């Protein structure tokens, strides 16, 4: 028995080491997990949605989970990314590889603008200001219907083929579409990981833990908040671009506050402050919605009840709790 317990201990330390290696290559590991996703989920369209919302929520997590700022307006960046992609392809006739950077730039610019106004406030006021400004964007899109399609949504920019280095990819094929869009997700994951590993990443966590102390240490808290807001908006805009390419429409609802609310729900389900949590949250939410709504029209009750259970008993979300419970993952994140 004694022998067995030392064996157990060494296997535990081995798995600790393995876990440490895995978390050092978290972008790669995340991508491997995401590459398997379409073969695990009931449909490819659902897998693409998990990928898209995973990226959006990951961007949001940078602001909410790592910096501790609860924004209720992230639909604005998601929607702007989507709308600009659609408008650039459909109205300006740009190819997709020009439209996407343009859309991300637009989302980032909007994030700078909204961030400059909202990061002056804190707590509940910050949430309200982001919500109000995002609704402003929503109504602009609703009113400028000759440009955005208004209530009917933006249509007429279907990308059915992607030419890449002499390679022609049929973009209507769900599997091709997933892996092309995964390249965008890879970019977002790498950027996110890079930010978190940088000294700046440590500063934003310091701001979350104790803003006054961070200030006393000599960090420009206001500047850092604005930068993180901008980066968060940019990553969410990448998700918007992916959504436009995936659905080939941009619904007006993508700018609605319910989308912002859904993003908050997903991050809480998956686990704020964890690297892969956003994808787990998006997957959980979308799978629940997809599967439960197939067998009852009252799916909202089921999803709502599960959400309440999570908030009450698993405040760290699925991924956060799992990392706490697994013995080899403790002390690491």
């Amino acid at each position, binding site marked *: 028995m004694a022998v067995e317990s030392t064996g157990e201990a060494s296997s535990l330390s081995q798995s600790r080491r393995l876990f440490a290696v895995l978390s050092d290559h978290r972008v790669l590991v995340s991508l491997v997990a995401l590459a398997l996703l379409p073969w695990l989920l009931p*449909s490819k369209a659902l897998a693409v949605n998990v990928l898209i919302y995973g990226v959006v929520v990951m961007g949001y997590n940078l602001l909410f989970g790592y910096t501790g700022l609860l924004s209720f307006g992230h639909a604005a960046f998601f929607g702007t990314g989507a709308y600009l992609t659609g408008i650039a392809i459909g109205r300006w006739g740009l190819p997709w590889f020009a439209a996407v950077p343009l859309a991300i730039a637009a989302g980032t610019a909007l994030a700078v603008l909204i961030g400059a106004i909202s990061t002056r406030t804190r707590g509940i006021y910050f949430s309200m200001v982001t919500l109000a400004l995002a609704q402003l964007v929503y109504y602009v899109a609703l009113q400028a219907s000759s440009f955005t399609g208004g*209530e009917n949504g933006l*249509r007429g920019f279907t990308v059915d083929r992607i030419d890449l280095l002499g390679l022609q990819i049929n973009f209507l094929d769900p599997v091709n579409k997933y892996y092309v869009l995964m390249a965008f997700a890879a970019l977002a994951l790498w950027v996110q990981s890079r930010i978190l590993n940088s000294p700046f990443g440590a500063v934003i966590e310091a701001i979350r833990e104790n803003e006054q102390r961070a200030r006393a240490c000599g960090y420009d808290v206001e500047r850092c908040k604005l930068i993180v807001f901008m980066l968060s908006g940019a990553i969410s805009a990448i998700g918007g671009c992916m959504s436009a390419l995936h659905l080939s429409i941009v619904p007006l609802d993508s700018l609605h506050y319910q989308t912002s609310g859904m993003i908050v729900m997903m991050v809480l389900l998956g686990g704020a402050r964890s690297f892969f949590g956003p994808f787990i949250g998006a997957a959980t939410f979308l799978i629940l919605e997809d599967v439960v709504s197939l067998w009852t029209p009252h799916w909202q009750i089921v999803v709502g009840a599960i959400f309440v259970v999570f908030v009450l008993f698993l405040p760290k979300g699925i991924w956060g709790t799992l990392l706490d419970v697994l013995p080899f993952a403790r002390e690491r994140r």
Partner: protein
Amino acid sequence: MPVYETKSRPAGLSRRKAMMAMSAGVAALAMPRLGRAADDTIRIGFPTPLTGPFAAEARDQVKCAELAVKLVNDKGGIGGRKVELLVRDDKLNAGEAATRTLELIEKDKVHAVVGALSSAVQLAVNEVTRARGVIYVSISQSDTINEVKDFSKFTFHEALNPHMTTAAVARQTLKKGMKVAHLVADYAYGHEMLRGFKRAQASIGAESVGEILHPFGAADYSTFMPRLMSMRPDVLCISNFGRDQANAIKQAVDFGIKQQMKIVVPVILHNQRLAVGADVFEGVVGGANYYWGLETQNKTAAEFNKAFRTANGGAIPTDYGAYGYSGVGSLLQAMQVAGGTDTEKVVAALEGLQYDLTKGPQHYRKCDHQSVQSVLVLESKKKSAMANENDLFAIVANDPGADEMLRSCSELGHAT
């Protein structure tokens, strides 16, 4: 489980258990993929908003669509192939509808899609289906889907469109020199109805005295009513849908608007009239694609009602329900003609089809695939005049279908 394990190990989940749990999870997720085998069933996708403010109308659509499928299957299907209807909740959300339609096409391999109950949602579904060359029969009102920008040869529109509906209603209710005020839901449906009414007013010579937009899904209309009354119109047109219609009319009546002016709606809804009651709706006039009371003057309507009653325990079909029946029914007839599901052949068959499923002859116009059909104008009966609880409306007019009721092909941008 041996007791010593709990002593020699830190509390919590072992790796082995975690692995087991994870593989069980993966297996559970993969399960539905295994049970599906290829077969020759004809599958029709049917996205519709089973949740949300239009749920009552959506449920009727599903019942009628299922009836259309059942009747075909009872007669042996299409060329011996059974037909299956795959109903999906689009949650009245365009993005959700597009995702569901993608799933229906990519995973369920449907042969055609019928459905949707909102202008934005049907345009989203149409965008997905036309890019993939899948036939889509829309059963919700829209003018936009007829226009050349959203049209494709795979796009068919079985529902009435706001242009036809408002013109028919205006012909019965407006006269030269009348003053008209509008209360309009602020989204595509409302805007298109308003445009239709104004166009009809211009040709009749009735004058607009004002229009008020209300937010979609509003519960409180009390602030609008005094403003509408101060415009002193002869007719108030309320252009909204579903629960909004019931709420708006109810509050208008509470304000005594009916003593001052006539209330007219583009589409008078069976379910909303039932929900609110006879006293409130009394005298309200509106258009409809179908009303069960048509059975006294139309043989097809009598047959449709009978089939629906038999399948649904004596209940009667409603207006939006009938769209579900004729949308799926016309598609299945075209598949019969085409002898299968070959898209090109079915499109050709739909274009040449003369069908009579619920209320008289219909056909899809060649240039924009809009269904040319009759438009009913109904007036809500007062309680004492109702013969039974389903005797809701009197049929004021039944305008037979004609190409002249539609906007011309050239106006819509189609080559003529």
